[in-house]
């Protein structure tokens, strides 16, 4: 006989998928067939809503402690700070949904901007920004080919790509920073505004919409989740799994290029040694967003909320005067606390 709180313990109450979604890695073997639930999420899952609840609680605490917390100025600060990492987390989430991982985002972001920096002398913003985006796309496609065609585990191939891209960035630039300040269009990505909204925030929102559309669209979204859920079944049902993976890696590369563009324009210089350890921060946001590294689950909406949670926490801790290093510790603990519940009923997890 079902006990009153069974659904809380096992997360099996029909229609309440919260705890399973909050689990960072679904135990693929133990996952139940999704029943009448569509294979791809049509609406934000309840797990996403629980993350929203965490976000609202944090914002409430912030507003209570610091009355200026929700001022337009502070919101601008929070969102601008989190825009780059958020965009990367969107790309990473889509890669993780297909059951792969992309550790090369920092390398791709750096190499793309450095390639753009080499073209500063031409003075053509179209050429520079085009080169940055193209470089991100090409590196992403190479990642995808190594994973989907050559068959190297994505952990290894993108790890190698991280090293290679970082090395190439230093070789191309001679280790020197480039200064794009004269290129107004380049700087616009970090410091400009659209209808009063800073460009990083506008791009963050735009990328969120694009990714939401891609993951929720009936064709591509279904292929994405099917590939991650069971690649063999997806292949047998006519989905070209390798193409899906290449597309997703290419998209993640473009996300990295855009994030690199935003961050280097904000700083005002292109640094070939930028973003050390960025991939792990992005992964943390992705994981906090509920994407399962085993593939087949995760949502862009979750990643969006997770990026906001991280932004709000960092902003709050800054206002409290907590040191940057203490913030790392707190952020790590928050991730653990948000990710941990709902894992008890699984037999084991890798």
């Amino acid at each position, binding site marked *: 006989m079902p006990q009153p709180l069974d659904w809380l313990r096992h997360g099996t109450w029909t229609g309440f998928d919260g705890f399973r979604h909050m689990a960072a890695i679904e135990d693929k073997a133990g996952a139940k067939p999704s029943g009448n639930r569509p294979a791809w999420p049509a609406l934000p899952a309840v797990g996403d809503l629980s993350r929203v609840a965490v976000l609202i609680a944090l914002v409430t605490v912030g507003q209570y402690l610091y009355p200026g917390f929700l001022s337009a100025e502070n919101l601008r600060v929070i969102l601008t700070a989190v825009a780059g990492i958020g965009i990367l987390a969107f790309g990473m989430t889509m890669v993780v949904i297909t059951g792969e991982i992309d550790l090369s985002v920092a390398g791709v972001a750096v190499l793309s901007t450095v390639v753009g920096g080499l073209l500063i002398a031409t003075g053509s913003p179209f050429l520079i920004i085009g080169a940055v985006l193209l470089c991100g796309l090409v590196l992403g496609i190479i990642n995808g080919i190594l994973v989907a065609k050559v068959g190297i585990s994505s952990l290894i191939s993108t*790890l190698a790509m991280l090293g290679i891209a970082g090395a190439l960035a230093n070789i191309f630039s001679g280790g020197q920073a480039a200064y794009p300040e004269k290129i107004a269009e380049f700087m616009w990505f970090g410091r400009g505004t659209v209808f009063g909204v800073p460009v990083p925030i506008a791009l963050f929102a735009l990328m969120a919409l694009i990714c939401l559309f891609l993951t929720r669209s009936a064709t591509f979204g279904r292929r994405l989740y099917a590939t991650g859920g069971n690649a063999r079944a997806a292949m047998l049902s006519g989905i070209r799994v390798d193409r899906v993976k290449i597309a997703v890696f290419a998209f993640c590369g473009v996300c990295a290029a855009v994030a690199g563009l935003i961050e280097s324009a904000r700083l005002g210089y292109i640094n070939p040694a930028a973003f050390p350890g960025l991939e792990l921060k992005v992964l943390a946001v992705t994981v906090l967003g509920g994407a399962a590294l085993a593939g087949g689950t995760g949502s862009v909406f979750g990643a969006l909320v997770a990026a906001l949670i991280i932004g709000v926490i960092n902003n709050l801790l800054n206002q409290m005067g907590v040191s940057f290093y203490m913030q790392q510790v707190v952020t790590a603990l928050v991730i653990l606390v948000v990710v941990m519940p709902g894992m008890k009923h699984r037999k084991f997890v890798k």
Partner: protein
Amino acid sequence: MTIAERASARPLAVSGILKDPILWLLVSIVIVGAATSPHYLSELNIQNLLRNAALVGLLATGMSIVLITGRIDLSIAANMVFATIIGVVVTAWIGREFDVRWIVRGNTFVGSPVVFIAVSIMTGVAIGIVNGIGVAYLKVASFIMTLVSLTALRGMGYLATNGAPFYLKGETFNWLGDAVLLGVPVSFALFIILVAVTHFFLTCTTTGGRLYAIGGNETATLYSGIKTKRYIVTAFALSGFFATVAGLVFTARLKSVEAALAQGYELTAIAIAVIGGVALGGGTGSLWRVLLAAVTFAAGLNLLAIWGVPTWYQNLAIGAVLVLAVAMARFQYKSQH
């Protein structure tokens, strides 16, 4: 590899060793090195090379043990730095309790090396156990658990030191970092001994066999009545131990430790483990080949350094070799099946 296959492959036949592609890679690197540079085979350079190999090899050994159980430990580099920092801080604190100043002018640590080493190893193993408990009992994915502890340990390392380096002074550190026994640096001798002991542990004891079994088929292992959780905690504790020993060797060589050291070494350790044939999925891998891979890795980097290749090109080469090695293994696997 299943247990049965592993058992049949257990005798380490000379012909088997000679078939190993890594060995031939190492031999060819050494031949090219000897042919192109008169300094490559000099005593000093070989010692230098072996010290580098010992550092990355110790990390890779710990990583391999965790990989064999099908998990991953990203926190080893942070652990190795944090454990040594805590060793210094706690030893200095113990000294203060006994009215001895063990941190003297200029942040120089002159305290008891025995206490320092004991505290460091206890810290490292404790962190490993915490990781293991998180993975096995709280069921957080190992990737996430160790990513979280990586972030937290890096932050706490800065908090414990305020970002300033500690300098270590003492005979023990000189010995551990610089001394040479019978032509082999102490750190490398330590590495060889630890690998030999652990290799024996993994291949010739029940516990070791169970670690492979967990990586091979966890459900089957659980259903055969083996308490898998404890073995996973053991694997992480061993990984923490190896990380700390690597940290001790590293700090003894640098004669200093600071929170920002060894960024990204976890990725090098994964690379060496994979080149050494440890499967990321678990269940396969031999520490003997990891040792070979570590020496090969260090020999290759050393060769590039002797040629005067800038660090950036060296990183490029590491990445390229990693992709090539795995791609070749992949094609070999495909052609066999």
